[in-house]
Structures are given as C-alpha cells and as structure tokens.
C-alpha cells in the first residue's frame, strides 16, 4: 500500500529551490577563517531537507548526492573538518548541481549523471582525506548551538538519552499531506520509541471533520542519536504543528543528567518565521483576481459616466454611492496589486554568487553592495528585469572594475565596488547599477562606432550622445571577446528588454571614477497611467512614462527634408514627425500640423513627435492583452476599455520608433 506522493512534487520542488537559495546565501556569507556555526547549520538543514524530500519522493540521485553532501556538512558542523575556500567552492558547485538535478527532475528530464558523479567523488574524497586530528577536539566545541550543551546535558558518544517529545499537530496538518506515520517511522529508526496517542480532543465520529487533525502524541525515544538528528526528523513538519523536545535522563556513560526546561521547537525551524503566516497561491489565481478588479474599475467608469446624465432627486445619492464605489474599488485594486508585488531581492539575490565567481575568473577583487532590496515590484516586471541586470552587472565587473594592480597604481582601493540599489520614485521604481571602475572610454566608443559604420566619421557628438552609442546593436569596446562579455550583443538587448517593460535606461560615466546605469520601470504592467489622444474617430492611449511634452507646431517650426519626411527642432535636436493617422490608416480631423498637436515621446533611446488630432484626458487604464485575445499589432502594445465601454488601443512607443527608423533607413 503506498500513498500517491506525486501530488506533493510541486511543493517539494518549490521548497527545495527556496532551500537552495538560502543555502547559497549562507555559503556566500561564510567566513572561511571563522565560520559562523549557525550558517553551517543553515546549509546543513537545507541539504537535509532536500535529501529527505528526495528520498521520500523517489528522486534517488538527489537523495544520494545530498547524502554525501550532508556527510561533508556534518564534518564541518562538528568541526572535524575546517571550512576552506576549496570546500566553500565545492559547496557552491553542489548548489548548482542540485539546482540542475531538481530542474531536471521537475521537467521530467534525465539528470546529468556525469557532473553529479564527478562532484560527488570530490566531496567524498575530501571526507576521506579529512584531518583526523580534528576529531580529538573537545566535545563541547563540537556541538553546534544546540540547546543540550547549554543545559549541561551533553551526551557522550554511545550514551543513550531518553527524549520526551510532545507533538500536537494543527488542524490542517493531515490535509496538507503530512503523515505522522512517516515521522514516527523515522524516529523509531533512531532508537527505541514508545508512542502514546492522546484521544481527548477527538470528538464523536459523527461530529468529526475527517480532514481535521484531532490527535496528538507523547513520544519517548531512547536513543544515542544527537539532538540535531532528532530535530531533523521534524523538519518536514508543517508550520502548524506544536512540538516540545526535552531530554529526560542519560541512561549510560558520561555526563550527569540535569533537570532541563522543556524546549519549544519552532515548527518551521528550518524555514523562516514569515512562512508561518503565509500561504502559497497560484499566480493564475491572483491574475484572475486582478482581471476581475480591472473589470470592476471599468464598470465604475461606465457607471460614473452614466450618472452624469442622471437628473432628479436620486441623482445626488447615486453619485455619492458611485464615489464610494470608486474609493472601495481603488483600495481593492491597490490591495490586489500589492499581492503581485515581490521584493526585488528575489532578483538581486543571484548577484552575490555571480559577482564572486566572475571576479575569481577575471582575477579581480570586487565587493558587491546591495541596497533597497526590499523595494517591491510587480512579479512580471521582476521576471523580465533579471536578464538585463545580469548584463549590466557582468559588464561592470568585466569592463568597469580594473585589476587590483591597476587600481593600486591609480591610487584606488584594490577592491572595486559594484553597487546595486533600488528605490521608489513617484509611480516608478528606479534600479541603479554602478561601479567605481574606469568609467566609459568615450574616445574608444566613438572610434569603434565609426569603424563599424555606426557613427559618421566627421560628426561631432556630445559625451551623452557618444554614450548612447553603447546601446546600438553590434558595438563592443572589449579588447578580448570572452564568454563573459565583449561580443557586441547585450546593451542593445538590455535597452530593448527594458523598453518592452515600458521602462527606460540612462547611462552616466566619469573617466576613472566609474559608471552608473539608471533603469526606470513602472511599478506594474497591469495598469498604466496614460494620455488619451484622438486620431480620427479613434482614441489611443500614450503611456505617460514615454511622454515628454505636447505642443502645437507652427508651420515655421517644421522642416521638410529631401525624402518628404517632416522634422522639427526640439531641445537642440531634430525629431521626426510620425502622423498617427497614416500609421493606422485613419481619416483624421486635422491634417495641417497647426490644426492638431504633436506629442513628443521617447523610447528605445530615441525621440519622435506623434501627430494627433487632440488630447482628451490623462487617466489610469487597465491593460488588456491584445496578443492573448487577438494577435500582435505593430505599434500597439495592448488595449483597454474606456468609461463609455469603448475600446482604446495603447501605443507601443518603442515599436513606433522602430517602425519610423526602418522607414528612415529604407
């Protein structure tokens, strides 16, 4: 008889990936000279948790590998082995291998057995070669921060201790798929187990809610296993289970038994305390909720529009009620949007490891500073900003930070600094990636751009214009093309990815002092602040993040160049005019430029003027995907529903600029 465990696989993978994240974070904090025992414990618990799950769910390769890893960690924890840089690197490689194994298992793909076997061999070799002198260290020093030592009940090897364990599961314990039978079976493998079930809370069977757990247990375990081993059995116990663990007496050899206070074992000992008050909810459920809230916002806008034409005694009450509805809808909308928000630490957390590895490979010394990691951002934005940030941070380490000798000769600290910061500014999030390296070499950028035909050979460009060239496809100033960077792909992709998120990127640089990249992103992709404009009988939404200014042009401000294209002077540069009615094949109300308005917009590092009939209003609009419901439309990013129930299309400014550029080139 077996329980169908496949239903718990997703939870196992999620929790294992989280455990690996915490393992990696702890390893990166580990000081090889003076390792914090609690950090080693954290790594040990993560490995043990994955091992337990791997074995339970039948992932034998994962269980086998983590078993070897756990043995090594046990040696480190008990100080029979010293934490060295080599071991630290090996443990970090183990994190990578376990991630790959879990990824393969999740995708139901075969595991790369060779890489696992190689690393497992290295781990076992270190264990075999351990310095046996460490084993003679005093017992007290071998104990981790465990509580038994603090209470004077330090069992010597071979001494059996009678442990009293109280286990009172919460009501949802069984429903979550946790089975006490498995826990007790593991405990019984550690020694002699006596189990007493408490039935006092069990109602009559007619009143019993069968999914709810009413049972609790007192356990007596006579075992020579260390306290940590007993606690580890409970690691997979859900957060809603109360546990007590106390040693009663030493049965043989050695230390004196001492009266000890009962230890309350936090149920989610290995996990974070925050988990106790949280639940996992599928993203699709949240998206469904957001969609309904969006519908509510639209319905409110419709009601509000209708109410304006209502007269009579009930009109005031109706309008008052609609105002109340607006307040409630807005609060609901903000609350729901917050559910989708995640701290940017989710993305930032990958960089300590990446910077460390890169610096090692490049022979550089780099310190990564992270600030503002609790700044929250929409989940979708977070998922898409990861790759651009990887490019930027890699470039900082590879191109920005100099080698230690060069830094010393320039009177700088040999250890370079890369700084990642995130903060809220108005309705946007600003992410800053900076370094204190050599800065951008304007002359080299210009000469490479000229050599590649990306800049005119004799034109004069300002420093800002030269730096903009790094975002042009095909430009790289790297002396050597490596697997890190220097292939001339990257910065253009960075800008395009950020533009796809309705964001923008700026670069600042000072020779010898470093570079600074500023990325501005909208808080969410579900709702956008937009400027509604009229073109013919249609309404379009221009995202406010792309809008710079609107103006009415006089004929004298407009120049028509040789191929018939119209340009106008705007803040020291000439911008092309894109007549939206032509782009979308509409009949406009205004054809003469002075009869309509030009909205100056920015995207993909360029600016253009969009000619429209009129500006209508500025408002928040709920984004409805066109691609999901219809298909991709050039120049359009999405649609929305206006207060009168009509559909308006949201302009994709970056795409419109690309279309305009292609026409220029043609």
């Amino acid at each position, binding site marked *: 008889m077996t329980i169908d465990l496949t239903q718990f696989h997703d939870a196992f993978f999620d929790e294992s990936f989280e455990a690996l994240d915490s393992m990696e974070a702890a390893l990166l904090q580990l000081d090889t000279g003076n390792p914090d025992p609690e950090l080693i414990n954290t790594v040990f618990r993560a490995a043990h948790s994955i091992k337990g799950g791997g074995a339970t769910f039948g992932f034998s390769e994962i269980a086998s590998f983590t078993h070897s890893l756990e043995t090594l960690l046990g040696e480190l924890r008990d100080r029979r082995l010293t934490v060295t840089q080599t071991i630290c690197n090996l443990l970090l490689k183990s994190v990578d291998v376990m991630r790959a194994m879990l990824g393969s298992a999740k995708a139901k793909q075969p595991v790369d057995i060779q890489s696992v076997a190689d690393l497992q061999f290295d781990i076992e070799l270190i264990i075999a070669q351990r310095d046996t002198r460490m084993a003679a260290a005093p017992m007290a020093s071998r104990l981790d921060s465990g509580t038994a030592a603090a209470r004077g009940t330090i069992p010597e090897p071979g001494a059996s201790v009678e442990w009293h364990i109280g286990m009172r599961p919460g009501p949802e314990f069984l429903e979550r798929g946790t089975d006490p039978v498995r826990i007790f079976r593991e405990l019984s493998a550690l020694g*002699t187990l006596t189990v007493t079930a408490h039935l006092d809370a069990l109602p009559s069977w007619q009143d019993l809610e069968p999914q709810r757990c009413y049972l609790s247990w007192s356990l007596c375990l006579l075992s020579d296993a260390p306290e940590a081993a007993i606690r580890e059995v409970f690691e997979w116990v859900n957060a809603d289970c109360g546990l007590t663990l106390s040693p009663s007496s030493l049965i043989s050899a050695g230390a004196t038994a001492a009266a000890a206070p009962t230890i309350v074992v936090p149920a989610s000992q290995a996990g974070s305390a925050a988990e106790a008050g949280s639940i996992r909810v599928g993203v699709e459920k949240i998206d469904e909720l957001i969609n309904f809230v969006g519908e509510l916002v639209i319905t409110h806008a419709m009601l509000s529009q209708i109410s304006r034409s209502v007269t009579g005694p009930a009109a005031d009450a109706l309008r008052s009620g609609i105002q109340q509805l607006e307040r409630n809808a807005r609060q609901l909308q903000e609350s729901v949007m917050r559910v989708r928000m995640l701290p940017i630490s989710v993305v930032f957390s990958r960089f300590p490891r990446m910077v460390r590895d890169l610096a090692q490979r490049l022979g550089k010394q780099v310190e990564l500073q992270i600030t503002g990691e609790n700044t929250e951002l929409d989940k979708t934005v977070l998922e898409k900003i990861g790759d651009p940030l990887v490019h930027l941070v890699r470039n900082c380490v590879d191109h920005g930070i100099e080698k230690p000798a060069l830094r010393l000769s320039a009177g700088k600290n040999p250890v370079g600094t890369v700084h990642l910061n995130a903060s809220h500014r108005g309705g946007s999030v600003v992410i800053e990636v900076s370094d204190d390296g050599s800065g951008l070499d304007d002359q080299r950028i210009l000469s490479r751009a000229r050599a590649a035909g990306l800049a005119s050979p004799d034109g004069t460009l300002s420093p800002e214009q030269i730096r903009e060239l790094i975002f042009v496809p095909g430009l790289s100033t790297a002396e050597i093309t490596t697997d890190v960077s220097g292939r001339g792909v990257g910065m253009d992709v960075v800008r395009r990815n950020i533009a796809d998120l309705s964001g923008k990127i700026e670069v600042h640089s000072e020779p010898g002092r470093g570079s600074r990249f500023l990325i501005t992103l909208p808080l969410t992709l579900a709702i956008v602040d937009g400027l509604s404009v009229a073109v013919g009988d249609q309404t379009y939404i221009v995202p406010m993040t792309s809008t710079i200014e609107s103006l009415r042009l006089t004929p004298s401000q407009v120049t028509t160049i040789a191929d018939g294209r119209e340009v106008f002077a705007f803040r020291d540069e000439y911008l092309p005019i894109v007549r939206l009615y032509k782009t979308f094949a509409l009949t406009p109300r205004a054809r003469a430029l002075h009869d309509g308005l030009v909205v100056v917009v920015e995207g993909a590092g360029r600016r253009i003027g969009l000619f429209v009939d009129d500006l209508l209003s500025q408002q928040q609009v709920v984004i409805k995907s066109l691609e999901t419901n219809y298909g991709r439309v050039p120049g359009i990013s999405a649609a929305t529903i206006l207060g009168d129930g009509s559909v308006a299309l949201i302009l994709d400014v970056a795409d419109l600029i690309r279309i305009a550029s292609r026409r220029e080139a043609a």
Partner: protein
Amino acid sequence: MDPVRKLAPPGGSTDDPPPGSQVVVLPVDCTVHNISLLRERLCGVAADARDITLDLRQVEQFDTSTLQLLTAFARDRAARGARLLTCGARPDWDEAVQLLGLTATLAGGSSVP
C-alpha cells in the same frame, strides 16, 4: 549506532470477515483526499448494533486521517457494546496502527476469530 526498534515487526491478517458481523469494504484510496467516501460508508452501518468488520483487502493507499476516523468510529462501537474488527490488513496497516499508538483502540478489536 545500531538502532534498537522496540516496535514489533508488523503482523497483518488476510482472514475473511467473521460470520455474523456487518462488513464494510474500505475503498482503494483511504487517504485524506477520499476520506468523505469512507465516512459515508461508515454512516450506512453506524446504527447497526452488530459487530462491524472492516474489510481492508482493497485498500492500496491510506494515511493517518483514516486511522483517526476509524478510532473515533471504534469508540462509538464500544459505547454501543459492539466491536470494530478488521480483516485483510496488510503489514503496513498494522505497523501504522502501532506507530500511531492506536493499537488499544483499533488493533485491540481486530482479533478476527
């Protein structure tokens, strides 16, 4: 360490239901996800004053929720002066009953003649 297990090796029974008792066949899936079905089956015989035998031969999956429900049901039978018996239990069923400390309530009544 050479762990000493106090728990006896699991036993089990493949006996047929004893004559004269009301028989309830437990479903294949006796986990928390299917517990309502088991409860319904027990409801159908709860008022019967005779001994009730749980036929476990079809059970392929079970967990503590089932044993908890049966514990409550066994207490109810005892209060009525009737017994709750089992037949066809596999070794891991008996082991689970022992591990959970429910032998006195469940296995105690499972001595099928």
